[in-house]
């Protein structure tokens, strides 16, 4: 890692700092949800649909209920809870009103069931073995229905309709319309362009594959629910639970101390949380529900698969004239997220049109996965542009420098702009000019190639809260509603507090992950926690310093308490992080094997608060991107609509031995927004990694791989 920085160094911020809870974690002291055992706790298991699409004629749970120790069986017949976050039109996750108007309600148990693995019943029993046995004793009579897996096929008139209105998922206004963005006039642009290129790219469903599958423990004391669950946002989860159960927010307490990763798989509340809560209510005992790894792969969500059609018009000198995308995103049968396909915004172009269809299919549901709408879209468009550059006989880096975004939507200025610097510095450090050669030019069976892709990613400011208490011993207790999904939020908050207060890190104590003890925090999604909650910590620190100046330090039993709930804006400008990845691969064309030889990531995420965790974020994202590019996929049998490759082995997620050495260069900046100038980083590493790898493969073999993942069968197939 290197950091060519022009910023004034700070005292606590900006130095490599180990996580403040590293010892708890590695010594096993940290309590994860799986470690929670409450007295009298029951165990739940879920019976899942063995069909991609089926109407339930009858459910007979009598044999299961007859087993001693089986306490309750939930089905669509006795449970009508609607899971808001699982069924939101337009994918507007945090807008409650949409739950009221949505036409496509996702109940906890639905009839018909619309994907393989959808919950049909849930059992609570005195132990896990018994719950599993009981699940197998439930008799379900299904009427099997036709199904559709592919997002493009689902829109054809002859396709089975998963919902009565058809398979185009409605907008937030319940209109059956695609998502459209237009600027200028593309038809005009294509007419005046000297060259027009068209192509089709596809990406697959890949799972977040976080270490810890979904699980939770729910218990009621009177009318108050306590839920232990690994959620990326305790405040949002609490609100979601309250809304879905029809109780006030303050009747729900959500606790998440430690969790085994999320990558977007654990946003909000999940159906497991609601199922456990309802079972706990019905049985009057706490209930634990743990998903198995394979269940987690199909029962929660993954990245939406896409089909992308691009049309690009360029002038003779390689300047973009028109840019068009028609995209299809497979959402599964329930709409959990936008289904957007990002990437068009990366280019400066007078005439742009993007039409995206979020489509219902009978696959596992799609939802958040680290930068939900970007890696797949960036793969499509940056492969397309790499190809256009090739066909225009231009160096791809030169092509990008000519056509990349300079203002948001070519109109609104960015809070700062370092994209060009990221690319130029990267090209220099990578020795791009020396390494790049005409595609497929290496003689012999083992060929080398280089690729580049770049990114600009939203880095919003917004509302969050923090409370700081100072006692007479000089302890600063910071209350923040963060959870640590692996990015080190607790440590980051402590660093920010120490810097803002001007005290040593060891004087700071963090209270986190408990909605009864901590104020609202934005939630660990959208790379926002550091920016938003970190900003609130600074504001609270300023409040505390003012109080100290006015009242002096607290003595004896006295304390000072400061708080802040800021909601800063970027004052009409658009805030983005920028970056560029440069990759060199080796392709063994006799065996179709791709090996990443060299990987350089140049990243502007504003000021780097902790180089250790920041570097890990970039490396982790890039690593996931390489996996998505080269081998991850959830394969379905086309005749039955059943997924076959669930689990870590099946979908072939990356291992340590597949991860290359990744070099990270941070270009630090301070745009005046965010805590000490920090911008988003959590999702920044993955967004362009897939495209960079794909472009390097093209440069090595001279054949464009348009369908992910780029496995050896495709490479060997292209070369015979």
């Amino acid at each position, binding site marked *: 890692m290197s950091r060519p920085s022009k910023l004034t160094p700070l005292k606590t911020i900006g130095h490599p700092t180990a996580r403040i809870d590293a010892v708890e974690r590695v010594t096993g002291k940290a309590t994860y949800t799986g470690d929670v055992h409450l007295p009298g706790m029951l165990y739940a*298991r879920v019976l*899942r649909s*063995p069909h991609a699409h089926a109407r339930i004629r009858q459910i007979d749970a009598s044999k299961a209920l007859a087993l001693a120790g089986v306490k309750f069986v939930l089905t669509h017949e006795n449970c009508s809870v609607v899971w808001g976050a699982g069924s939101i039109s337009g994918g507007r996750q945090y807008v409650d009103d949409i739950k009221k108007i949505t036409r496509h309600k996702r109940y906890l148990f639905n009839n018909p069931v619309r994907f*393989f*693995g959808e919950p049909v019943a849930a059992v609570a029993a005195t132990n*896990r*073995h018994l*719950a*599993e*046995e009981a699940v*197998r004793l439930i008799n379900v009579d299904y009427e099997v229905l036709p199904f559709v897996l592919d997002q493009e096929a689902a829109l054809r008139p002859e396709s089975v309709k998963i919902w009565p209105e058809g398979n185009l998922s409605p907008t937030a206004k319940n209109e059956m319309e695609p998502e459209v963005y237009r600027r200028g006039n593309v038809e005009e642009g294509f007419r005046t362009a000297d060259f027009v290129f068209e192509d089709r790219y596809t990406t697959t469903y890949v799972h977040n594959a976080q270490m810890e599958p979904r699980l939770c423990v729910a218990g009621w004391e009177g009318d108050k629910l306590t839920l232990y669950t690994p959620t990326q946002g305790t405040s949002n989860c609490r609100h979601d639970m309250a809304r879905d159960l029809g109780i006030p927010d303050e009747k729900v307490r959500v606790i998440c101390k430690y969790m085994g990763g999320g990558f977007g798989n654990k946003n909000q509340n999940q159906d497991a949380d609601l199922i456990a809560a309802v079972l706990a209510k019905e049985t009057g005992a706490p209930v634990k529900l*743990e998903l*198995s790894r*394979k*269940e987690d792969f*199909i*029962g929660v969500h993954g990245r939406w698969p896409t089909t992308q059609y691009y049309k690009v018009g360029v002038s003779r000198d390689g300047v973009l004239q028109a840019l068009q995308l028609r995209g299809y995103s497979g959402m599964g049968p329930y709409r959990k997220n936008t289904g957007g396909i990002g990437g068009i915004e990366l280019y400066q172009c007078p005439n742009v049109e993007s039409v995206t269809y979020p489509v219902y299919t009978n696959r596992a549901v799609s939802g958040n996965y680290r930068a939900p709408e970007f890696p797949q879209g960036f793969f499509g468009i940056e492969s397309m542009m790499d190809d256009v550059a090739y066909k225009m006989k231009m160096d791809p880096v030169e092509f990008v420098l000519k056509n990349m975004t300079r203002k948001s939507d070519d109109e609104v200025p960015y809070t700062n702009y370092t994209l060009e610097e990221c690319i130029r510095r990267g090209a220099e450090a990578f020795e791009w000019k020396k390494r790049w050669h005409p595609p497929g030019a*290496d*003689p*012999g*069976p*083992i*060929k*080398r190639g280089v690729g580049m892709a770049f990114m600009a990613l939203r880095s919003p400011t917004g509302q969050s809260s923090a409370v700081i208490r100072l006692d007479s011993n000089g302890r600063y207790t910071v209350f923040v509603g963060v959870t640590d999904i692996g990015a080190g939020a607790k440590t980051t908050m402590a660093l920010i507090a120490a810097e803002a207060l001007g005290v040593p890190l060891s004087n700071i104590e963090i209270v986190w992950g408990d909605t009864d003890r901590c104020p609202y925090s934005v939630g660990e999604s959208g790379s926002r926690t550091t920016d938003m909650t970190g900003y609130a910590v600074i504001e609270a620190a300023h409040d505390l310093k003012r109080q100290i100046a006015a009242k002096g330090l607290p003595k004896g039993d006295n304390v000072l308490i400061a708080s802040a709930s800021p909601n800063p804006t970027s004052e009409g400008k658009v805030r983005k992080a920028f970056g560029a990845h440069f990759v060199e691969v*080796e392709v063994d064309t*006799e*065996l*179709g*094997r791709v090996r990443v030889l060299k990987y350089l990531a140049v990243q502007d995420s504003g000021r780097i608060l902790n180089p250790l965790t920041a570097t890990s974020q970039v490396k982790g994202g890039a690593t996931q991107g390489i996996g998505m590019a*080269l*081998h991850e996929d959830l*394969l*379905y*049998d*086309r*005749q039955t609509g*059943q*997924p*076959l*490759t*669930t689990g870590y*082995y*099946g979908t*072939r997620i*990356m*291992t*340590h*031995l*597949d991860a290359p050495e990744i070099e990270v260069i941070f270009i630090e900046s301070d745009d005046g927004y965010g805590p000490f100038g920090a911008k988003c980083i959590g999702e920044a590493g993955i967004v362009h990694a897939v495209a960079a790898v794909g472009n390097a493969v093209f440069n090595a073999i001279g054949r464009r791989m348009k369908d992910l993942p780029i*496995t*050896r*069968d495709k490479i*060997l*197939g292209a070369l*015979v």
Partner: protein
Amino acid sequence: MAVIHDVMPAFELFQPPTVDDAVRLLGQYREDAWVMAGGLDTFDWLKDRIKRPKVVVDLSQVRELSGIREANGGLEIGATTTLTEVVRHPVIRGKYGILSTGAEAAASPQIRNQGTIGGNVSQDTRCWYYRAGWPCYRAGGNTCFADTPTAINREHAILGADRCVAVNPSDSAPALIALDAKFVIRTPKGERVVDAEDYFIGPGTDITRMNILRPGDLLTAIRLPADWAGAKFYFEKVRDRNVWDFPLMNVASAMVITGGKIERIRLAVNAAAARPLRLAAVEDAVRGKEPNAATGEIAGRLAVQGARPLRFNAYKIPLMRNLVKRAIGGVEQAAWA
């Protein structure tokens, strides 16, 4: 049906201390008994609740089944010797390096610490359909789900298919065939010793089994004869990831070169068919020739004769051709290296 179960069902567990006790138990329970060595293939089946044996006979307490000893100038490897022990054994490394390399290519370090050589050669196929409990031929049904025009069969067979198109996934098996290993089997009738390549069977022989063991049989040891000690070896495995991934195909060759010519050779590939294939016709064709690229080309082309691709595995044909080519002629270095 993709598997979404949680915990193992109940069964009766025996942990016999001797081979005789184990054989007696297996003779007593026959079809109801399941032999368990390292348990890595076993636990998948049990946890997924697809195979539900009444009795499990765990070999972990049978001391005499584990360990590597010198025998008749060669080596005898006990069936429950772990893959890690096989990988690290100095004599195997020194004289039979191909077995060390093959075993090390299997799975991951943790799995090799627990998985045994006997289990590795006796493991079942990884066909997604079969592993997920679909009622196919191999599971006793009357159809193959992997051999349909749209089936997921990228990993399936290009050779030797007979209704079932599954492949054998063992990485140690082709190395053992190349070394002309002998497998020692205890049956209720006594001991039997078979050539490595005869241990494995295809669907034409019995569609529900991958090897010759019948209920009641136990593999006790694998013997490496001295004949191929120190030969010129080549092993290469192709997989999607660098670790923790079954072979899409692998190749193993042992050659004795005299006067620049191939005097003796044994060559095998796995994951091309339901059993690891010894390529005797290729061996015959290259004997007496120089082990160079040209000979490799001939060998590769001959090796894939009769190969029949399915919808998604046509790539295995060039793959096998190139692997066999390299096993004889070596790898061409990268131009830029």
